[in-house]
């Protein structure tokens, strides 16, 4: 028997025992083709998926290597069916190629005629293809490059794209590394992306994804369109680019609900691009406004469906996606793969934490007991009302007040879902509140004040979930959320993970993440689901009764 660290299960999960002496080697060897699914303290779970295997093919690994790796590190015999499946799946990638033909332009070529025939017979694809040049080559309508790739992936014959990219309009962009340098993993990520042409970089919240974007821009040295989730995030991108690169304020435009500037580097929000008027998207022209050389998608796991459709038309341009997690609640990972590109870089959270680039976190769940009257109301309530009732209990206000008092010296965020609850908390804690209704200017002012330390406590709604850079925050208390969204949990924790400057005593910041839930209600059930994501990322958490908080 082989004494390897890896156990290959027949359901295509790989269990990696991390205390094993060869665990690190094994992790490096399987990372290119297996998706890390869970990384709790003792045994990490990876999964083999077609996408992961095709990612590996795209990165130049072949089935023989994958099988050899599995056999080398596996403790027990590897299920035969799984090996066959790996070989078959990987063999499907690249049978079809998108190429540039000197006279016919974009063509779909194949070395395997039956596959081409099968694909040509698919109804969905017929409209995207032109005439047949010879037995193995068929013309592709230039505008359908993205759609075709998407459709081929659905058919299970992902095409390898050799058609190349347009350079776009050149524009000088350089990183200004004065007093700071790109971290190794950031440089590595940017290089992996550039080498691959297009693709997605996966890094934890707080690990500096913006800089990866900036580094990619400096590589491209061309006009760039940056798509972000909201206006505040757009401003942060702008500030960061001005600070870290040779770009000046005048070279960076913002294209949002309020301002519509088109500059060599333009930052647009998803929202404005997907605004519909009379069934059309009036702001789509932005995509054609310049000859963009690079398109950056921030928070790619949130890309809305219309943006996918638009992206399908942008296949000739380089695309980089940035995200903390490729988990999409809508299961459209395949679209990300085919339209933006395969995963080019990935690093486990705990690894980056170990390098000191993100702060370690202490996660605690605090359980409160509903008072008798509320329990009765809860028991008789309609199911759709229950979560709101349970999560908005007045009991939580008391607990939050205790927690805030406990961490009086640390900058603290109180995060919630329901406005009345937030208002109630703001009143009880005497703290400013930021919700979707707060004007952008006011938001910006409050965030700035929080950053500088002028305000030590903020009550925020889900507007702060994404892309708001609050490096000083040390404590977050969440009182309610969007039901069981694991992604939201990750994003909220991400707010705390930016490592602040070390304290005078040289101690590193430890983020404290509290979740206040009502015992024996759906609130607790959802909390459990949300925590799973963190536990799976290796963040152990404790559960404490409100009475035992010891305040």
């Amino acid at each position, binding site marked *: *028997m*082989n004494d390897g660290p890896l*156990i*290959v*299960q*027949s*359901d295509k*999960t790989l*269990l990696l*025992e991390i205390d094993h002496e060869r665990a690190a080697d094994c992790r490096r060897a399987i990372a290119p083709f297996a998706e890390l699914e*869970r990384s*709790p*303290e*003792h*045994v990490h*779970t990876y999964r083999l998926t077609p996408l992961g295997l095709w990612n590996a093919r795209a990165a130049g690994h072949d089935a023989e290597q994958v099988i050899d790796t599995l*056999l080398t590190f596996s*403790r*027990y*015999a*590897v*299920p*035969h*069916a799984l*090996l066959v499946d790996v070989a078959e799946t990987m063999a499907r990638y690249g049978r079809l190629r998108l190429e540039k033909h000197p006279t016919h332009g974009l063509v779909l070529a194949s070395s395997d005629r039956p596959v081409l025939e099968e694909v040509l017979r698919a109804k969905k694809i017929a409209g995207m293809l032109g005439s047949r040049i010879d037995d193995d080559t068929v013309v592709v309508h230039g505008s359908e490059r993205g759609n075709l790739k998407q459709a081929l992936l659905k058919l299970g014959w992902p095409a390898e794209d050799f058609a190349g990219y347009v350079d776009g309009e050149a524009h000088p962009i350089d990183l200004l590394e004065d007093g700071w340098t790109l971290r190794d993993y950031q440089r590595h990520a940017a290089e992996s992306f550039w080498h691959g042409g297009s693709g997605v970089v996966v890094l934890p919240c707080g690990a500096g994804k913006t800089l990866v974007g900036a580094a990619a821009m400096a590589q491209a040295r061309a006009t760039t369109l940056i798509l972000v989730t909201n206006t505040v995030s757009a401003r942060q991108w702008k500030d960061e680019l001005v600070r870290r690169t040779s770009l000046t304020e005048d070279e960076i435009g913002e294209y949002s609900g309020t301002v519509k500037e088109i500059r060599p580097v333009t930052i647009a929000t998803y929202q404005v691009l997907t605004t519909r008027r009379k069934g059309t998207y009036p702001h789509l022209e932005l995509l054609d406004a310049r000859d963009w050389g690079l398109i950056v998608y921030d928070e790619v796991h949130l890309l809305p469906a219309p943006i996918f459709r638009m992206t399908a038309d942008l296949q000739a341009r380089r695309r980089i996606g940035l995200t903390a997690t490729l988990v999409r609640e809508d299961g459209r990972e395949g679209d990300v793969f085919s339209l933006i590109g395969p995963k080019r870089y990935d690093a486990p959270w705990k690894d980056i934490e170990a390098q000191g680039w993100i702060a370690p976190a202490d996660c605690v769940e605090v359980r409160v007991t509903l008072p*008798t009257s509320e*329990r*009765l109301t809860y*028991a*008789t309530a*309609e199911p759709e009302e229950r979560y709101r009732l349970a999560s908005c209990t007045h009991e939580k206000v008391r607990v939050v007040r205790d927690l805030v008092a406990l961490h009086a010296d640390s900058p603290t965020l109180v995060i919630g879902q329901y406005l009345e609850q937030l208002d109630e908390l703001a009143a009880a804690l005497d703290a400013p509140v930021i919700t979707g209704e707060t004007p952008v200017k006011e938001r910006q002012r409050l965030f700035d004040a929080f950053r500088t330390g002028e305000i030590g406590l903020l009550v925020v709604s889900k507007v702060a979930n994404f892309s708001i850079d609050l490096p000083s925050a040390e404590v977050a208390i969440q009182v309610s959320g969007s039901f069981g969204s694991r992604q939201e949990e990750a994003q909220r924790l991400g707010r705390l993970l930016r490592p602040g400057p070390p304290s005078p005593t040289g101690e590193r910041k430890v983020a404290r993440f509290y979740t206040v839930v009502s*015992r*024996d209600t759906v609130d607790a059930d959802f909390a459990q689901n949300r925590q*799973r994501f963190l*536990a*799976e990322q290796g*963040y*152990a*958490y*404790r*559960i404490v009764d409100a009475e035992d908080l010891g305040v």
Partner: protein
Amino acid sequence: MAEELRFRSLADQLRNWSDEQLSALLAHRPDLATTTPHDFGQLASRSAARASLARALDGLTTFELSVLDALVVAGQTTPAELTTLIDAEPSAVAEALARVEALALAWRSTDGLRAVGGLSDALGGGPGTSGLWPRTADAPSGDVLRTRLAELSEPARRMLEHLLESRSEATTSGSRVVVAVDDARTPAEELLARRLLVPRGGNGTLVVPGEVGLALRGGHTTDRAVDVEPSVATSPRTTALIDRTAAGAAFEAMRRVEMLLERWGTAPPAVLRNGGLGVRDLRAAAAWMQVDDAQAALLVEVAVAAGLVGQRADNEGDLAWVPSDAFDAWLDQPTSQRWARLATTWLTMPRSPARVGGRDEAGKVRNCLSAEIGEPQAPATRRATLEAIAELPAGETLAAGTGLASLVAHLTWRRPRRPRSWGRFTEEACREAAALGMLGLGGAPAYLRELLDHETASALDPLLPEPVDHVLIQADLTAVAPGPLESTLARSLHLVADIESQGGATVYRFTRDSVRRALDVGWTAVELHDFLGSVSRTPVPQPLTYLVDDTVRTFGSIRVGHAEAFLRADDENALTELLHHPQAAGLGLRRLAPTVLISSTSLDVLLPRLRELGAAPVVEGPDGAVQVTRPDVLRARTPRSGSGQRRSDAASSRSSAARETARIAAAVTSLRAGDRAAGAVGAAGPPSEVLSPSGALAALREAIDTGTTVVIGYLDNQGMTSDRVVDPRSVDGGSLVAFDHRADDVRGFAVHRIRTVRPLAPSG
């Protein structure tokens, strides 16, 4: 020594054989001994019957068939001459000849070595034959033939060569049959004139005589060597890898069968009216075992054939597939024995699981376990396939792509007369053997030989994962067992946690429900904590401890009575909650006291409804104690092995082999006795005069073999017996074809009307 002996007839030769030789013959051609023959005459007659010959030929290799074919072409000959006729190593020819003689397919007549009568027809241009006709009796010498061939014009020679490739047969179609050499106008006439093509029968058929074919092929019956066995295309792998892969598959197959039957114990699928398993049930089984439908069908078929599953009527009286009590016994066996049982079952079960899911002629889907899946050829194919792979040198595996095709070619050479479908069966056998762990990467693991010979697999044990006695518990409420768990531990853990992923390792997840399930069957909080602490190699994470405590906290706070269906709890609010619950209206709850409710609903409905509503009630017995229940696990009786297809262990197969030997020995003894009796009768009455139909057959075959003229007493349509003088040519399908001297023509005679057969008295 045998070469010097000459016999008047095949029966004579058999009579002279030793008991060992006879036993070997009867063992290899068992059809000869079914209903023990009376005497050697009958035995010889039977062995030349068409059906029996066909069966005997089915067991020969292409080379052995070529030897027989050469014998037919040669007619009467000597072993030495035969050797020169065959394009093969003389020693190989001698070996093959010995084998066909031992099978009574060839014998030594007074005039030389010859094939038994009817063999030419039985070979019938099938595999292994050269396409040559027998030599003519007055064949010209080789020199003469060579001269004649040299004289031929180019078209005539080409025609001759073409004829040789296509069964050496032609029709006259206008050519004159009797032509002088100088008069020949067409290529065909050229050949006819030189007797390189001769008429045969009266219907215008022309054939190339055997000696011409031999001359054209340089004295051999074939133009290429016939003793070359096609080799199997292989590629080398390390034996360790083969063993590990195969053992992995073996372990998986066993685990899956166990997993499925455990489930069928509580949720048995119905038996269809055709005796099968429904498509939906099969699909559910496949999903449960995490395999595709084809593999699920294989595992289900094997489990049932191994007797691990039986039928049992469920509560409604419908039949269902349920694990048998043999399954429990099987579970307690050592791992390698368990696997050997499945593997041996597969080797001997006359069923073809690959057919499941296909459609029959009427377009109906073939169900798993139904009679339509039966395939009598399956066991023989499987064994032949595995034997062939087991014969490969260690570390050699079937080459990717070409390996399977070459294996089929190899098997076809060994048994060329098998039906064409064998190719497909071989492929299926390889696939199924890989799924069951009898092959790894297309090669034979170390334990395969042992399995084929002794039906055990002790060499498998060291290859299987060692059972582990601990798990790793993690903060995300999962526990990972890094190997197969000891069975008691596995059962306990299965109770307190749900299984999330299975394989070499098992991943368990703790949930509120799973912990409650443990509490339901009587575990206490202390026991749970102790259990977790003792099985976990790492400290138990705080969230799990909390989960257990939290579940215990709510568990049993509400108690439900049986007799009055009461609900009582110390917590008034809990009851008030329940009473006011919008979905509790149908339960007919009424408050009796601040801490007691009663219900008009019977307990078996009430209990699950309460759990649905989020309560965690326990049932209180009449004496006030908490009752614990666990679901009943169903078992059926071990099915009796019906068609003798299941020889579940080595012992029974050994005993059946012993029985077989005894039966053959008895047959040989009775044959000798019968022969002596027949000899005694023969001495008293007229020689060779026989009255029984089988005796007539033997006598006729002897006459065919020796080419003698006989007088038969024939019962004609009017019921009159008349004597006919005939030269028997062939006996087949109950009729004798013979040259009737009186009619001066070839006539057919019904064998059952032939009353007597006796040799023609020497005239003059």
